[in-house]
């Protein structure tokens, strides 16, 4: 299987879906002539033209709403947020319009729209450009929320998201774009709402998604050297959440660490911990522990930023805590 980047896997998904369905189009800031701020849409303007690859003015609420309206009457928009940090301006359209349209119209208007773009912190981008907002969107009924961790998952999940008839919020890891992984040449999809075991183990379950999967895997590798076998599970889709494999893993390992890049307070990890307690309380040998981003706006200084982010070392420490080793 070819080894390609997460970025190129996403581009393949966009290209293949645009070739497959003439109602699919891509819209956002700099997606066309500039070839995408993060180059995910490289080559698409040349292949599909200005009708289907549309550069917008800087107007997140406006073009998110254009996406929703076009989806009401049969198109399948892919709306790129240059980064999710800008999505707050589009929250009214995403939450008040996209998420609720099917329900408040009594089932009449589906919104088959994907809103996608990079999320999470990168390298010293400071408070307004370093946020993991998946918890905000996963809170809202009517939205589906996806956060792939590998190039394989990124391509397969994006294709599924584009074909889905509901609004899908698609978080790409900003620092994952250059990461490489095996991606088949042929057509495949990864279904929404199906978790994946990224590493099998018997001693502790680590739940992580997006960029945090690589952090978790690094920690698991380090712990393996000490004879501790971690199971790393990636939900891949945060809503709908594939609860059963998460619970089954904890029932096997009896211990659970959740790794989340976003803030701890009201984060996704709080929901995951609830699910584990609800369905596997009797199997737990230790309280569920969370490793999250620090509860602060992201600082600029390199050392402080490092301290604010989950790291393999913090995951190792959390695993040892639930094993009562330290």
């Amino acid at each position: 299987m070819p080894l390609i980047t997460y970025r190129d896997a996403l581009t393949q998904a966009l290209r293949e879906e645009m070739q497959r369905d003439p109602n699919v189009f891509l819209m956002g800031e700099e997606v066309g002539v500039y070839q995408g701020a993060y180059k995910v849409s490289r080559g698409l303007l040349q292949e599909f033209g200005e009708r289907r690859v549309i550069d917008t003015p800087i107007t997140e609420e406006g073009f998110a709403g254009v996406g929703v309206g076009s989806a009401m009457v049969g198109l399948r928009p892919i709306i790129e947020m240059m980064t999710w940090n800008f999505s707050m301006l589009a929250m009214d359209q995403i939450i008040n319009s996209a998420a609720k349209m099917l329900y408040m119209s009594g089932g009449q208007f589906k919104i088959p729209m994907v809103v996608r773009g990079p999320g999470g912190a990168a390298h010293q981008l400071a408070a307004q450009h370093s946020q993991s907002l998946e918890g905000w969107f996963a809170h809202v009924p009517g939205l589906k929320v996806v956060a792939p961790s590998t190039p394989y998952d990124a391509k397969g999940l994006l294709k599924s998201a584009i074909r889905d008839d509901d609004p899908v919020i698609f978080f790409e890891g900003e620092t994952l774009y250059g990461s490489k992984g095996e991606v088949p040449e042929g057509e495949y999809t990864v279904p929404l709402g199906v978790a994946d075991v990224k590493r099998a183990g018997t001693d502790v379950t680590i739940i992580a998604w997006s960029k945090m999967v690589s952090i978790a895997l690094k920690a698991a590798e380090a712990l393996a050297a000490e004879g501790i076998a971690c199971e790393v599970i990636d939900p891949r889709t945060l809503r709908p959440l594939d609860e059963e494999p998460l619970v089954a893993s904890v029932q096997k390992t009896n211990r659970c660490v959740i790794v989340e890049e976003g803030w701890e307070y009201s984060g996704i990890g709080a929901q995951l911990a609830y699910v584990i307690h609800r369905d596997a309380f009797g199997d737990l040998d230790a309280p569920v522990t969370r490793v999250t981003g620090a509860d602060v706006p992201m600082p600029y200084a390199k050392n402080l930023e490092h301290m604010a982010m989950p790291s393999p070392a913090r995951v190792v420490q959390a695993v040892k805590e639930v094993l009562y080793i330290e």
Partner: protein
Amino acid sequence: MANERLMERPATLAKDVQIDLLAKMLLGRRFEERCAEMYSLQKIGGFCHLAIGQEAVSVGAISTLQPEDYIFCSYRDHVHAIMKGCDPGRVMAELFGRDTGLSRGKGGSMHLFDAGHGMLGGHAIVGGHIPLATGVAFAMKYQARPQVVLCFFGEAAVNIGAFHESLNMAALWKLPCVYIVENNRYGMGTAIERASAIYDVAQRACAYDMASETVDGMDVLAVREAIGRAGDLARRESMPTLIEARCYRFMGHSMSDPVHGHYRTKEEVEEQKLKDPIKRYFEKLAADGLIDRQGFEQLDAAARRIVDAAVEFAEHSPEPPAGALYEDVYSQPYGSYTRSHQ
């Protein structure tokens, strides 16, 4: 001048069309009077915003459309829905929160939807639907469909960012959308002079080099002509227009707001009522010899019969079944969520 792009349109209407406009305004008026009554009887809950006094705008504008054209509305949407062809019984049933309602009781007064009649919804965040209408116009152009989208909103909505963002894109991309400001002078209880740096709302179109027009929103024929011209521009040249229809609501902002109070005087409301679009239009038709008082009474009686039947239908319709609670959150079932079978 952007206005020069608007095309001329013959003003002579067949008699039956002229009479029909009166019949439609009467239906809208009687329907909403009954809404007020049903609200006070607590048959209708939530917020209920009536458009009594503004019938000439919705009736005049929507009378220019083809069945395949689309409309978007704000939360003051009852008359617009009926004018677009929605069944009055199903509109009333929606207000009653019944399963037979346009939105199966999930939307209520502010969220009337009817896919079969191109009614793309009442939307309850001020101006939040303006980008949606722009998006539908985008889709019309994308698919090369010669349709037009009318987007109704109040004058308060022109101050939000989404208005500016939408009109900029519509003009930039040449989208077939007609933006209709129903300027009833008050955004809830705040007069336009206290909220808007520019009094002449239509002037804002110059910021986008967009065609625009200010029209007497209490004159159904004037509205019809202006929207007809704008619709032609949309259909033939795929160009947007901003229309400001100056009108007045005779009722409060919603049923919880008195007709007059802190923000406007009884005298002002009474003075505006002299320009009642129905009374004024009837007098014009009578002067033209097209109808007499008896003819008016017949139209009125017919409107009341439709409204009676609508209330009767709503009263005897079932509430949504308990299973509807988790229906239509997603288009495919998962977990506790199910899908209705429309």
